[in-house]
């Protein structure tokens, strides 16, 4: 799953699909007010739905793994190894 797909998920989940909000791989999702902590869980669940075989462990749902689009990309790549 690449960054643009994850960006699409973020836009759909948190921005009502709005394409005008500028998002980069480094935009801090929590700090910039795109989502709150509950949003991280929604993201994890959405990724599991989209990527059969991906199982996000409870302890991995953290702001470190889901804090930006770039971090999510790296986490997903690592988790699917």
């Amino acid at each position, binding site marked *: 799953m690449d960054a643009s797909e994850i960006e699409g998920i973020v836009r759909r989940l948190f921005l009502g699909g709005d394409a005008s909000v500028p998002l980069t791989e480094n935009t801090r999702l929590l700090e910039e007010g795109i989502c709150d902590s509950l949003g991280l*869980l929604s993201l994890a669940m*959405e990724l599991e739905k989209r990527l059969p075989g991906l199982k996000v462990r409870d302890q991995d749902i953290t702001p470190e793994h889901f804090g930006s689009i770039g971090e999510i990309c790296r986490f997903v790549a690592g988790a699917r190894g």
Partner: protein
Amino acid sequence: MSATLVEVLRRRLEEDPDRTACWLVGPDGRSQPVTWRRLMARAGDWARAFGKPPPGPDRPIAAICSYPGPDLHAAFLGALWSGWIPAFLAPPSPRMDRVKFEASFRAILRHVRPACLVLDAASAERLGPALADPGGARILGSAGVPAQGGPMPEPWPATPGDIAVLQHSSGTTGLQKGVALSHRAILAHHHAYAKVLGIGAQDCVATWLPLYHDMGLMACFLMPLIEGVPFVEIPTFDWVLRPWSLMEKIQEHRATLCWLPNFAFALLARTARDRGVTPGLDVSSVRAWISCSEFVMASSQRAFLDAYGPSGVSQDRLSASYAMAETVFAATQARPGSRRVLRVDRRALDTELRIAEPSTGPSIDLVSSGPVLPTLIIEVRDPAGRALPQGHLGEIHLRGEHLFSGYFRRPDLTAEAMTPDGSYRTGDLGLLQDGEVYVTGRLKDLVIIQGRNLHPSDIEAAAASAPGVIPGRVAAIGIADEESGSERLVILAEAEPGSVGVEMGIRRALVREMDLSAGEVRLVPERWLVKSTSGKMARADIRRKWLAERTGGRAHP
């Protein structure tokens, strides 16, 4: 009957010191049992650390600002024991701008003027420079409270009318409103509410609610202690990332009572749908799931029932309560298994302010919050203060045995909230029908997001600090959102011509200043926002205009 909280605590301790008072769930997910003996021994340590209240008319305040930890409850009980007035304050949010948090924290210190500030290491570190001048407060952390054990020190001789606890609601405006509650009011509430719920020795409360919220403090901490039933507590932040842990803990401890805001029902249903339910989950021990602090959405309850029906949740166990800090907590409680729904004519309700049988026009379902507690008297009144007959819509007024003593150090706000005959004006709109209370909306412009009561003026001030927003031209409104089971915060702003990135600036400002994520931020054309003749933001009109334009299919108003 014991007349003060301290007397009840002492009696409970003497009755059976080895009984479990609570289980605190640690970062590893394990439940640590805490006996009455251990809890109160630590409370005794804290009581000694606080010391005797200094003589004088003003009792000292112990402000407790701490993340969940083993000392949170003991510090509170120790303050109560030694005649200090404990007040939980929300610990600093990691998302919020440090400078902003410090500023709001200093404002609390100035208003509450605590003689002691209880801080854990993490809060102390985050607060940093704000603590250099704590306004004369002594700063106390767990490390400064040596474990001495031994017999409890002699309690301060409280009388029933003394203020026992200060309860602050959230939000900048809320911080100015410390709800002062007496021993008498708290005990009257707990005994009455426990009786209505039929709380007994077999009960156990499961919670993840923060203690600085009235539902966490009263329903899930003090009431279980006073009534002698244990509680299982998951730290709020852990629950947010792993909501299903609540269901697992319910099963582990065979919990019987669970208070949740509406959004939690929706969230638990969504996690079950997306991740599945823990295999073999059995939460049939819970006899009442009580929805509280937010408007109850039928869709959230239905989704919860669908998701957890096979695990032992049934329709007759879904319940609700209408509660507020000013009545200690619950004002009403729905009778288990008999939630009434009234289908009424919408036009009659909106224009004639009364219920009528649905006719050809649109109808609306009103969900009952149950009968008022026997210790309170409820009246629905018109704007002139006259009591209305049943079936008529007006402002809900409450008086009775467990009303607050006033807003702490704010006689002006207290006078505003009370009528000459001693009733509390709730600011909520509702009606009475066949002895049941139906809450339909509110007079006050509050936005309630995930159980947090937010004042639009605070949100608007934070949003207006973003570059490019025209001063005074921003409105915050809440729109019911079935997906999240809460309200969705919509910010509408007018921007200076040529400014860019205003929406992101507003989002960032809301996080920094209030730890708040907007559901939607939209720029509207100049002079789109409506103000009243007195120059105030006409939020009800703005809300209607926004909804009309949105359903009209226009992406940008």
